[in-house]
């Protein structure tokens, strides 16, 4: 008995991927090869299921295909080593599907997530591996999302697995203190996947895989696995409250529309509602972290029906908290904007001066863009034009550059 392939089948397949990988990796005690085998099983499912229908036990089907690949690999490895005597023993070792399924652990996905966001990995390798092993994406889809050749992405993933193998990390759930220590790295990887989706969701990149939505799905799953962690909920809230503005963020010519000029009727109410609900529950837990604070700031913006209704004193207070919890030059920059909205542009410009001597941000386009904006508010048109142009020259984003060049042109032409 099979079921017809429909819109939900792809989602099902991706949800099953980490469960199957967990089962196979545990059985064969080899994460790296198991991950390849599951990828092959996923590709087989993607090519066969749409035609032949979804098997009655899709998870069992995937486990069987992946285990067959693993066994083939073990056999050829043994043949290569010419250890004939061992063949019988090793192949008999292959367990029945029932045994493997009985061994499955609901924490497998969490184990994989911690493994793929291993601190020894560079961000780009951790992202690629997480998307494949935990997200169930194919190498081609990941390559497409990052606009690199598939072979390059395959190498990146394979190297990431070598790094994990070399680190000797066992396939088990990290101890509670280890989990606390490594969770920020996991959340950071999920956050980076979301940001990448945000960067790539404009213009000529519309055909790319929707990473923002994928990041939301993965974070939602992580929240199910760690229901009591306020920062996981905070991150999910932040993603939803930001993604809610997606439709309003660009104009008909795909030009960038800043928050204060967006058509707020285009914001996704359902996402805002869910984000605020999640955030409220998270904040009630008492330990306020980086993502909850950012989500809270996003929520204050989202709650304002008109830009004039924005509760800037509250945003300013939240940035002050954020400066204490997770200080960074970008937080200082955003804090200056909020201060300018509450106390006027002079106050904002005064706060920006602190960043001129900070080498991490002194040459960053955002500093000039914010300064230009505040100078414009102050009425210093020439200085504003100058800083809009400096910012335009420094940004590495095309829509941002177009926006900044247009701002300078608007002031120069008035």
């Amino acid at each position: 008995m099979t079921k017809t392939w429909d819109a939900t089948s792809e989602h099902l397949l991706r949800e099953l991927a980490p469960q199957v990988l967990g089962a196979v990796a545990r059985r064969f005690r080899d994460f790296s090869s198991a991950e390849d085998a599951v990828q092959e099983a996923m590709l087989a499912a993607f090519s066969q299921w749409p035609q032949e229908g979804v098997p009655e036990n899709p998870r069992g089907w995937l486990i069987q295909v992946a285990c067959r690949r693993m066994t083939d690999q073990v056999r050829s490895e043994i043949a290569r080593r010419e250890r004939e005597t061992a063949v019988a023993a090793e192949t008999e070792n292959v367990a029945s599907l029932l045994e493997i399924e009985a061994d499955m652990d609901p924490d497998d996905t969490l184990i994989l997530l911690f493994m793929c966001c291993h601190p020894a990995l560079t961000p780009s390798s951790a992202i690629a591996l997480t998307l494949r092993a935990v997200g169930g994406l194919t190498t081609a889809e990941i390559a497409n999302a990052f606009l690199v050749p598939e072979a390059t992405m395959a190498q990146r993933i394979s190297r990431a697995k070598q790094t994990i193998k070399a680190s000797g990390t066992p396939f088990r759930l990290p101890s509670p203190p280890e989990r606390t220590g490594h969770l920020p790295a996991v959340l950071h990887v999920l956050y980076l996947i979301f940001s990448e989706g945000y960067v790539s969701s404009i213009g000529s990149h519309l055909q790319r895989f929707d990473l923002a939505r994928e990041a939301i799905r993965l974070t939602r799953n992580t929240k199910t696995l760690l229901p009591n962690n306020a920062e996981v909920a905070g991150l999910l809230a932040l993603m939803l409250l930001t993604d809610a503005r997606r439709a309003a963020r660009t104009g008909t010519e795909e030009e960038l529309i800043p928050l204060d000029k967006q058509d707020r009727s285009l914001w996704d109410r359902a996402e805002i509602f869910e984000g605020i609900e999640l955030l409220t529950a998270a904040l009630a837990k008492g330990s306020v972290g980086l993502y909850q604070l950012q989500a809270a700031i996003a929520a204050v913006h989202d709650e304002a029906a008109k830009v004039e209704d924005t509760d800037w004193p509250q945003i300013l207070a939240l940035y002050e908290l954020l400066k204490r919890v997770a200080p960074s030059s970008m937080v200082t920059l955003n804090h200056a904007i909020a201060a300018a909205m509450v106390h006027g542009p002079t106050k904002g410009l005064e706060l920006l001066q602190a960043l001129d001597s900070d080498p991490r941000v002194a040459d960053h386009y955002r500093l000039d863009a914010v300064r230009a904006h505040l100078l414009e508010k102050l009425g210093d048109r020439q200085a504003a034009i100058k800083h809009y142009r400096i910012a335009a020259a420094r940004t590495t984003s095309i829509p941002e550059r177009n926006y900044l060049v247009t701002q300078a042109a608007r002031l120069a032409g008035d």
Partner: protein
Amino acid sequence: MKYILMMNTMKSGHGVPEWPRKDLQAHVAFMMAANKELHERGELVAAEGLSFPDQAKLVRAGKDGRPMTDGIFPESKEFLAGFWIIDVDSPQRAYEIAAKVSAAPGPGGAPLNMPIEVRQVMSGPPPDML
């Protein structure tokens, strides 16, 4: 983040290196090994070598919109010989790769230390969060 690495070579004669055979072979082998390494590290987006400047044409649209081509440019001392597009985690890594290919072996196996122009490839807008 993606970068383009543009390899500029000094023009001499027709632009063709007039080196002993073993030095040419060493140079080609070095470049191939460099590309292979970039591929294996999962950093290579594209790598292309360009035809010699003898073949170059400068094209402009004429009044009727048709192409008007211009010939070779003896005044230019340097020319673009090839480029890489790489996807790396930091600007430092891009500079490291640029320095490596810059030192490709030339005549007598001595490093050429060619100038490599490194430019970041533009992307979409970053999130307006942190």
